[in-house]
């Protein structure tokens, strides 16, 4: 890869930006700058004068970057969005992953394709990570709810811990619900009977 290519990452998520930066550095791009502050975005970008700008699609400042396409006195080098009209699959993949790329005119398309592919895989990796984190969080919360409901049942029906759990599990199976949902109903009901 060409270490001379200067890349700017515009992303308000510091974790995702770091993951992407790591990937780019591993691939041999040494000049990577992250921007997480959106005020005066264009001025910051002009000061860095990058060859490639990567921005996440959840960022409203994408519209600010579109201004760079306009012929303007401030722009040193013309910048275009990386869209290869013949390659809709890669556009689709990048939109799906949630990233968009802008390049300085004249940068070789193949090089850009490498950078974009790397972005897509890193963004997707981040989404998977986020998904796992969300699932872990939910599991942890479910556990807490189930434990509370278990306590309520043990006290109210004078059951052992095992039996209280079995009761909820059987009810959940019968009603085609998750145990956590049944547990939540137990807690709600108990609060109403207070």
């Amino acid at each position: 890869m060409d270490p001379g290519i200067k890349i700017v990452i515009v992303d308000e998520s510091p974790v995702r930006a770091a993951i992407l930066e790591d990937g780019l550095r591993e691939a041999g791009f040494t000049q990577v700058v992250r921007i997480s502050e959106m005020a005066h975005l264009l001025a910051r970008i002009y000061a860095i004068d990058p060859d490639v700008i990567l921005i996440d699609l959840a960022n409203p400042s994408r519209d600010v970057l579109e201004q760079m396409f306009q012929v303007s006195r401030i722009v040193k080098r013309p910048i275009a969005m990386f869209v290869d009209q013949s390659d809709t699959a890669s556009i689709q993949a990048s939109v799906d992953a949630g990233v968009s790329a802008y390049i300085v005119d004249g940068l070789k398309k193949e090089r850009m394709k490498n950078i974009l592919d790397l972005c897509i895989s890193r963004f997707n990796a981040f989404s998977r990570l986020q998904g796992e984190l969300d699932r872990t969080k939910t599991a942890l919360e479910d556990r807490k709810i189930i434990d509370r409901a278990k306590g309520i049942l043990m006290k109210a029906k004078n059951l052992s811990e095992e039996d209280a759990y079995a009761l909820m599990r059987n009810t959940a199976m019968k009603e085609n619900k998750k145990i956590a949902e049944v547990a939540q109903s137990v807690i709600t009901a108990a609060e109403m009977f207070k």
Partner: protein
Amino acid sequence: MSTSNTRLRIGFIPLADATALLIAVDKGFAAAEGLDIDLVREVSWSNVRDKLNIGLFDAAHLIAPVAIASSLGLGHVKVPIVAPFGLGVNGNAITVSPGLYAAIVAAADGNIIDPMVSARALARVVANRKAKGEEPLTFGMTFPFSTHNYHLRFWMAAGGVDPDEDVRLVVLPPPYMVESLANRHVDGFCVGAPWNSVAVDLGIGFILHFVSEILSRAVEKVLGVRGRWAEENPDVLVRLVRAHHRAAEFVEDPANLDEVAALLAAPNRIGATAEVIRRTLVGRMKVAPDGTTRVSERYLLIGRNGAARPDPAQAAWLYAQMVRWGQAPLSDEFLATAKAVFRPDLYDAAVGPAAPLPSSEPADGIGAFTGPAFDPNDIGAHLAVWKIRR
């Protein structure tokens, strides 16, 4: 819902002119047409455009110039878009900081409610700043191909301010406008509802003009679909337009105002207070932090006065602005393509023959506060009138 329902994904930006689309879904007008619409709230016009272009959206709440730029291949990939329904006419306003407001009032030669008076006053303020070696004024707008960009330019250029030389125009996402005005990154902006009202309510902005004072009939947002999609799904398109038409009629019935405002206020819809949305829909706007209000029946037209029927003359006017400011070359082919984006025929096919426009509407379809009547067939002659252009 029956299984024969057509599923559609439609993108929108949380602004008051998405009303017809949002109400078509929330009040069941779309469902009544057998349409199961998945609304996707977006954060940027670039996203809306790209997702519509590559087919992730079937249709979109689209800022009108983006539909034209996309069809002409300006600034981006060329994807023909057609607009069978107008989501709003007018609705923008120009808001300035208290400092700039005071400076304009002080420099004004008459009542600044007259856009020519305010534009000439702005020219004096700009000249004074230049003489003192101060930084040029900065104005925010929403997108390079936006009505807001063109409205600001049309107004200030009429007073002798060159929008590229004398001031700075910067793109700002609407949710950042108010903050940028508060921390003085910009001195003013042109944007749609609810953001002007938010600035006034916070005491950091004065609404200088409703855009309806600058152009009496300015197309704002359209329902945009890919030209190819329209050809391949004529029946779905008819149902989609009809659902919007019914929603727009519902919105314009004063008896439904409270319900509409409440629905739009939801956090997954526009997410502003119902009261601010109400103000916008009835055109009774608080224009100054002290509570001064200004009323205009033309503030935002959704279903009334023929606003929903796309008018190719409006598309021609937007294209003329692109030419005037150096975004597009002047050509008969481009003009014809731009006009063909707006499709009154598709609108009529869905809702029936249109009634003649009421006498309140301008004869040239635009009603600019200055300059000759707009001629959609001769952009070159029309532009020759303006001294400031690229």
